[in-house]
């Protein structure tokens, strides 16, 4: 047992060391300098990035969750597989292509990027909403009906609380993905931290690369962390499932 624990600790600390070494190396080569020397530009790019993600994600939640609820109602049950397959198919289309194709429809700019990100975020949220509601034990719904609950009471008191985990996980997946896709918004001229990453690639400038890539990475990790906390708070205690990774 002790040896196993030791191996686990070694791996963990080796990783910490590697991350620390990376940062020391990057700092000693002044790869982070742009963040401070061009802090105004950095903040503008960061704000653009965050706004892109927030607006598109919120829109996607507003559309995808109700759509997922609607499609799982008995009336539309038959159409469910069509939409689920469309959602599956949609996820094989590269995010870069969605962005690129929006240029020909909406031209270049912020709106285009928001719309593309919005479209791309709908899929995981929709899929998880449907999967969450579908996974609820039929007997539970039967019991609710038999107790005289009205359809809206069943939805709000039984179905949504018990699929909250899955819905929120879908939202988290979408937001984290969205932060990465927003880094591609550069190609449609919508700014964001991707601007520095692409500048770095084009100019072979490690400073721009690192100053763009590390904040995007931290943003994604932070969003993931915060949304996991939100899940923990929002999901009812009794229907919390222990799911790791």
């Amino acid at each position, binding site marked *: 047992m002790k040896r*196993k*624990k030791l*191996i*686990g*600790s070694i*791996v*963990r600390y080796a*990783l910490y060391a590697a991350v620390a070494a*990376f940062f020391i190396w*990057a700092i000693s080569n002044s*790869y982070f300098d742009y963040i401070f020397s061009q802090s105004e530009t950095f903040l503008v790019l960061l704000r653009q990035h965050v706004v892109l993600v927030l607006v598109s994600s919120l829109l996607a939640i507003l559309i995808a969750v109700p759509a997922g609820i609607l499609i799982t109602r008995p009336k539309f049950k038959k159409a469910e597989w069509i939409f689920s397959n469309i959602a599956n*198919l949609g*996820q*094989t*289309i*590269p*995010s*870069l*292509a969605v962005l*690129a*194709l929006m*240029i*020909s429809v909406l031209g270049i700019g912020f709106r285009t990027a928001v719309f593309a990100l919005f479209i791309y975020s709908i899929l995981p949220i929709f899929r998880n909403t449907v999967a969450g509601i579908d996974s609820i034990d039929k007997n539970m719904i039967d019991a609710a009906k038999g107790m005289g609950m009205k359809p809206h009471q069943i939805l709000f008191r039984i179905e949504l609380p018990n699929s909250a985990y899955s819905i929120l996980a879908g939202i988290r997946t979408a937001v*984290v993905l969205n*932060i*990465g*896709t927003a*880094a*591609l918004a550069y*190609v449609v001229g919508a700014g964001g931290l*991707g601007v520095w*990453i*692409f500048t*770095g*690639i084009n100019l*072979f400038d*490690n400073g721009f*690369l*690192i100053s*763009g*890539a*590390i904040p*995007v*990475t931290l943003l*994604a*990790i932070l*969003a*993931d962390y915060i949304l996991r906390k939100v899940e923990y708070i929002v999901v009812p205690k009794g229907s919390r499932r222990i799911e*790791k*990774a």
Partner: protein
Amino acid sequence: MEKWARFLEVNSSRILELTIDHAILVSLAIFVALLIGIPLGIYLTTNQYLADTVLQIASITLTIPSIALFGVMIPIFSLINQGIGFVPAFVALVLYSQLPIIRNTYTGIKNVNPEMRDAAIGMGMKTRQRLLRVEIPNALPVIMAGVRTAVVMNIGIAVIAAYIGAGGLGVLITQGISRNDNYLIISGSIAVAILAIIADAILLLIQKRFTKKAIAE
């Protein structure tokens, strides 16, 4: 329609070439990822401490946006003069594949019916025999599901790799963007989507074939 016909006449051989490049990049990455991920996933079932650490690392890795990972890798690989091109793309794809492969191998084997495991032990099977004859065959559907996730994800991520000179179908899309040519963008995306669907279907077929065999034995 006519325009499409003319476009394909000129470009079809190039599209095919890039598709093959794309498939090779992803296949190599998945192959290496399997070589690392499956033994690691199996080992993790015997070491809970390490499992927690590794799954956490893999899960954080997956949240790193692909373009940002490339952005970090270019400076690092520049140290060995491989900053641009195949190497960083390949390494990134291997890293991204680790979470679905390790996690599914780990949970697949962990979730094998404990009674079945007991029976195997009771029959006097050695650890290795138990693993190869009982645990892996029964965990195969879960492991394969992880591989499929990794493959479909990698086909999408490899598109971005075109920006760091790794070739593949992303080239069509990036060129389409810079030349403002929708034909290139659309044909590139459709090729990517078809590649993903075909790869998924083939893996599903393999999974079914092997599962049946496992049960028949």
